[in-house]
């Protein structure tokens, strides 16, 4: 890449000028002057070494290597399930791989790759390197924005797009004035030297965009790093007809950020009044695939009345200072338990977790009081059980997500359910240790199978269970409070705008010179690219054309 040659005029300050208006870049940027070979470095002291390491860290080469290292280090996290995005996957992965391998991965933090020490170290180093690069560059650019273009080089003919025109007896002042005007109009910053040449520069926006891009990236990291502490996300399974209040204690699970204070939550109420799911019944190939889910809710914010709202998969509900997302749905069968005397002891509507797109669902039910013993059930619910084994299988999973041929099968356990001991109880899974299975696979007695409206006797004379005709739907909602969103979005837009200007605005210098010779005045034009500039040659030709037209010259050289 050509550099502006040193002018012969000893009084010139062009070299200084040129340096001043160049973007300041790491010394191994290809546009920076090549290091002079053969210079013996003096011995470095501690400060010297620190400065040396700092230089190394902020050099292009280090930044590039760190970038590639980030890309490389991000790979394992996509091969192994991550605790944050796929906790069930992690459990499965751990169960189906040898222990030493799982231990190694755990030790390396691969299940939490993106918050692991090594991944953080790489991107933090990258960002330190970046900051070390952009601070001096920004200060330098601020100065360059206020300085004039550098002095015209003494010889233009070695520069890009060099063009000359024999202008005969044209007036030099007029020619220079016209060149100045043309360049000004094209957005150049212009300076006239000695009344016989114009030096012009444009595209300062390129460096501005470049800096905005990088600063905005740092901004995103800072907002995510610091602001992440103010976020909370909660989950709540809501059965139609029920609701929740926006307090931490009412959530099924919650993951608050480090600085989140539960007292700051807006205590709104949300009631799920209806849930509809539509499935395709038109096309054979996608028969039974979901077309639409809508949750109809009523909400009440403090000091306001009830409002009717809807939540869909792609349109969350904004209420209070949270967004409520519809992330899943399923069925919540209602079961009524009677003791051996026929007295109702418990009626429970229990959400069953969907296992597949046809809503094959599993759940657990516990009856602690009222029956002769404490009883627990694990259930498999199929909204559509296959009626003909020959056509659609043994009926172990649902074949359609809608309630066409619902069926519930239960396995029954008796024993101490642990309510009295205050053991934490998982609402969705049953830990069978200490319990005795009295019906279902492996117990010697068949499990219970019920159709809606049916009542069957419990084994061992424990009483009976009725499967209600009405099967409720539930919606599983995610509640998020994220004050950083808007900042991340702002910075992301800045990243994008900075990227476009930093890549596509050409930074270039242009020179027009009038040289008096024996045969009259010769007009010379040339340019110099600062960074990638695909159209520089054309720009010089264009300038020559416009300029000569303005002077009324024939365009032939």
């Amino acid at each position, binding site marked *: 890449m050509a550099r502006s040659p040193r002018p012969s005029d000893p009084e010139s300050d062009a070299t200084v000028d040129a340096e001043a208006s160049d973007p300041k870049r790491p010394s191994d940027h290809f546009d920076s002057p090549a290091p002079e070979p053969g210079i013996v470095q003096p011995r470095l002291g501690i400060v010297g070494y620190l400065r040396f390491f700092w230089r190394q860290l902020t050099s*292009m080469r280090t930044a590039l290597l760190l*970038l590639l290292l980030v890309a490389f280090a991000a790979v394992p996290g996509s091969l192994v399930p991550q605790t944050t995005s*796929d906790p069930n996957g992690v459990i499965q992965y751990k169960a189906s791989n040898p222990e030493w391998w799982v231990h190694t991965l755990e030790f390396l933090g691969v299940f939490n790759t993106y918050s692991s020490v090594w991944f953080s170290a790489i991107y933090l180093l990258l960002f330190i390197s970046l900051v070390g690069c952009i601070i001096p560059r920004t200060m330098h650019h601020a100065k360059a924005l206020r300085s004039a273009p550098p002095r015209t080089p003494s010889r233009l003919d070695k520069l890009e797009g060099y063009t000359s025109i024999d202008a005969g007896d044209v007036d030099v002042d007029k020619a220079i004035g016209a060149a100045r005007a043309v360049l000004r109009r094209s957005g150049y910053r212009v300076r006239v030297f000695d009344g016989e040449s114009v030096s012009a520069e444009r595209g300062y926006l390129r460096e501005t965009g470049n800096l905005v891009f990088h600063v905005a990236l740092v901004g995103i990291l800072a907002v995510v790093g610091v602001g992440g502490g103010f976020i909370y996300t909660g989950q709540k399974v809501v059965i139609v007809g029920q609701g929740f209040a926006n307090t931490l204690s009412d959530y099924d699970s919650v993951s608050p950020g480090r600085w989140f204070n539960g007292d700051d939550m807006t205590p709104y109420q949300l009631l799920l009044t209806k849930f509809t799911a539509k499935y395709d019944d038109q096309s054979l190939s996608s028969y039974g695939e979901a077309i*639409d889910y809508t949750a109809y809710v009523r909400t009440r914010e403090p000091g306001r009345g009830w409002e009717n709202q809807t939540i869909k*998969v*792609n349109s969350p509900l904004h209420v209070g200072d949270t967004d409520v997302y519809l992330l899943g749905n399923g069925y919540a069968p209602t079961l009524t338990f009677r003791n051996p005397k026929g007295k109702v002891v418990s009626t429970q509507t229990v959400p069953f977790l969907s296992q597949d797109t046809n809503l094959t669902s599993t759940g657990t039910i516990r009856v602690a009081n009222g029956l002769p013993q404490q009883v627990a059930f694990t259930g498999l619910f199929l909204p559509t059980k296959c009626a003909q084994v020959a056509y659609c299988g043994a009926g172990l999973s649902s074949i359609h997500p809608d309630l066409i041929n619902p069926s519930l099968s239960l396995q029954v356990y008796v024993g101490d359910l642990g309510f009295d001991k205050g053991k934490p109880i998982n609402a969705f899974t049953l830990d069978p240790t200490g319990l005795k299975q009295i019906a279902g696979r492996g117990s010697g007695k068949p499990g219970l199978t019920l159709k809606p409206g049916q009542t069957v006797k419990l084994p061992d004379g424990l009483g009976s269970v009725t499967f209600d005709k009405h099967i409720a739907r539930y919606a599983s909602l995610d509640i998020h409070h994220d004050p950083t969103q808007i900042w991340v979005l702002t910075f992301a837009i800045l990243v994008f705008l900075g*990227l476009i200007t930093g890549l596509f605005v050409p930074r270039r210098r242009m020179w027009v010179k009038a040289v008096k010779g024996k045969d009259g005045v010769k007009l010379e034009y040339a340019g110099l690219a600062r960074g990638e500039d695909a159209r520089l040659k054309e720009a010089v030709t264009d300038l020559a054309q416009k300029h000569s037209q303005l002077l009324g010259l024939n365009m*032939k*050289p």
Partner: protein
Amino acid sequence: MNQPDLATYSVIAIYSAMTVYAIAFICFALDLARRASLAKGAAIAPAVPLTVSAGSGSTALLDRPDAPASGDLDGPIGRVKRSRTARLGLYFTILGWILHVGGDVLRGVAAGRVPWANMFEFSVTMTAIIIGVFLFVQFWQDLLFLGVYVTGFVTLFLGLATTEYYVAVSPLPPPLQSYWLVIHVFVASLGTGFFGLGAALSVVQLLAARRVAKGLRPIPAIPTPERLETLAYRLIVVGFVFWSFTLIAGAIWADHAWGRYWGWDTKEVWTFIIWVIFAGYIHARATRGWRGSRSATLAIIGFGAVLFNFTIVNIFFHGLHSYSGL
């Protein structure tokens, strides 16, 4: 005409496009073979000086250089007239493209929405964009030497799509019912198209650089490695802008659909990895010692990651994007 008919015509159009592309591929291959034999023959002839560099130092004519100028391909041979086989290849590619786009549009009409909601549709649209960019670029630069790569790649990819990824027209599942599907996925396929061509140029650049290093004469009408690098850079930079947009648009959509703008989902991770690799490419182009073959290698690795992301990640990796898969 009812919907299944339209979908069937769409598939027929796409199969026809594949056939025509295959013919175009043969034409381009013959053309390349011809050029290679020309280069061999010329090696016996007295060597043309290799140092002509138009533009600098000469008192140039004031003609506009954006008209097809010999200086643009400033190899020592200058601009070689397109051979009949190359022109035939171009015409077949145009014909194939018309069928291809027709098939894609029919698919969209049959489905009543944009034709890029699953892997099959995305493959068809993305390859149509690759060919589109390839054809469009011909107005600006003679890049017919890429014809073999482009038609070959697209024919193979369409073959993969029609045999392995094909799914019948189906309505959109709720998570995809968003205008972001129109924007996010389309821009992603635009980015893929530009990266694909950029990587192709980088492959040719590496081959050309090896020829130069071995002291062999360049193949006629294939630009110098430096020129190829510049062309590749310009395409990849455009692809990078599209990819950045895809990333941001995807984050906004994820925030609407899943309640968070970023969650290190496998597809998000790979989109990020690709973005970082190409960011690395752009930095490599500005780092002393990394221009040339090293940055070209990065561009090729980057496009490799794009393909990996689309095929392996979609099919074998578990993630939130999986409903768009098979």
